[in-house]
């Protein structure tokens, strides 16, 4: 939000020249902007970011502000505006799902291993394969990860700065969209788990990691998560 207003010259009265220039391309009234993002979100099957919306709108339009109005308008309606990561999508209200048996898609049944792996990635991201295996106590089969990648529910994140620079996994926008989550921070029970220390990367006692490595790991984890869990 802070970003959007900052890039909007109108809200920045100090910049005289820019403001003059602005008047030549006056933005449409906010009600009109709301109609525009409404049309765009309806048209697209996939979530659209504010940036994508702004790119399509006339110069000077502010999708973020229009979005506030639009979301309010659709409260309690048959369809609503879901926030999905940093994007938005119009989806039917979940309480009307019973009407839509015809539209229901048979999803491939996920194995228990796949479901657990998915949950571990969602709650621990970014997480390496070794860490997933440590949590589950068994090796993760290639097929399980492949299946989740193929469904586009997970993707590769940044490499960890530990020896071997292992790849990490994170969940995707499709994942958030599928489970109607605004962000990975809204995962059920996340706060409680964190409070209970169950999301810490606790090494088994007796293993002696080099100090520097541990620091790297902590840094990387923070950084990696901040990307996904920031406000």
């Amino acid at each position, binding site marked *: 939000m802070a970003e959007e207003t900052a890039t909007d010259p109108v809200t920045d009265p100090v910049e005289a020249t820019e403001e003059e220039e602005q008047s030549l391309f006056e933005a449409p009234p906010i009600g009109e902007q709301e109609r525009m993002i409404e049309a*765009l979100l*309806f*048209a*697209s*099957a*996939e979530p659209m970011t504010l940036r994508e919306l702004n790119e*399509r709108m006339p110069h000077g339009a502010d999708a973020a502000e229009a979005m506030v109005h639009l979301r309010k308008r659709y409260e309690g309606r048959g369809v609503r505006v879901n926030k999905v990561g940093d994007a938005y*999508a*119009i*989806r*039917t*209200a*979940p309480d*009307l*799902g019973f009407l*839509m048996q015809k*539209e*229901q*898609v048979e*999803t491939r049944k*996920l194995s*228990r*291993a796949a*479901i*657990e792996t*998915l*949950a*571990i990635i*969602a*709650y621990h991201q970014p997480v390496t394969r070794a860490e997933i295996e440590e*949590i*589950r*106590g*068994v090796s993760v089969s290639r097929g399980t990860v492949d299946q989740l990648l193929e469904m586009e529910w997970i993707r590769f994140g940044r490499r960890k700065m530990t020896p071997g620079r292992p790849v990490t996994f994170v969940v995707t926008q499709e994942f958030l*969209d*599928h*489970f*109607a*989550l605004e962000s990975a921070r809204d*995962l*059920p*029970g996340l706060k409680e*788990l964190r409070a*209970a220390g*169950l999301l810490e990367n*606790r090494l*088994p*006692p*007796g293993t002696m990691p080099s100090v520097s490595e541990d620091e790297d790991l902590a840094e990387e984890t923070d950084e990696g998560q901040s990307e996904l869990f920031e406000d």
Partner: protein
Amino acid sequence: MADDFIEQSKRDAVAERLAAEALIVDVDGFEGPLDLLLTLSRTQKVDLRKISILQLSRQYLAFVEKAKQLRLELAADYLVMAAWLAFLKSRLLLPPDPEEEGPSGEELAAHLAFQLERLQAMRDCAAKLMGRDQLGRNFFKRGIPEDITKTRVVTYTANLLDLMQGYARLRTKDEFRPFILDRDSIWTMEQALERMRGLIGYAGSWTDIISYLPDGWEKDPKKRRSATAATFAASLELAKEGKVEIRQSGIFEPIHLRSRERDNG
């Protein structure tokens, strides 16, 4: 007190045995030693935070022992875990040896308890996640998305104007048809060409193209105009084909043509 304790241990022993027997037939159903430990821990019916790792180790070792008696092949990681739990058990039971390095039995037990709690937590999370409203099951995306992405391959389109203009074009053509039939004062280029092809062989010397007009078309101005235009167009066509040469000495002067075939042949 003592009796109670003995009774309790007996009952535990029975429970352990039953659990082991129940589980043994299904050893393939476990996803590794940690999963097995978690399942065994349920017989303790306590919060995982308060679980007795010592008791759990005994249960696990009893399970592995039973599996051996039944000559079931256990995967290597089950045996590694058994060896480690036997070591942990001895650490927990024996007073700490001040000479020995490394973590204490309690530290090791705490970590194992943490691992079990964490795995259980992840399973609960997985269940909660799958219990959420899901896209395509409980809520839905637009059934007829409109074309706004650039990843689209070639699509063909037309608007109403194209359609109407296309139709108008055709119908106008249609409207011409009946009039073609009664156009008795029009000499077409096709007709002129046909006439000239037949005559051109004789045109060895420069001849005014007016002489190629069809008979009887020179008098009526309307007919003459049409026939002249058609003949002129046909002459150009023949020149383009290389059959004739055309010349005109000046603006509005007569146009002459002659056959080239005579020259060449």
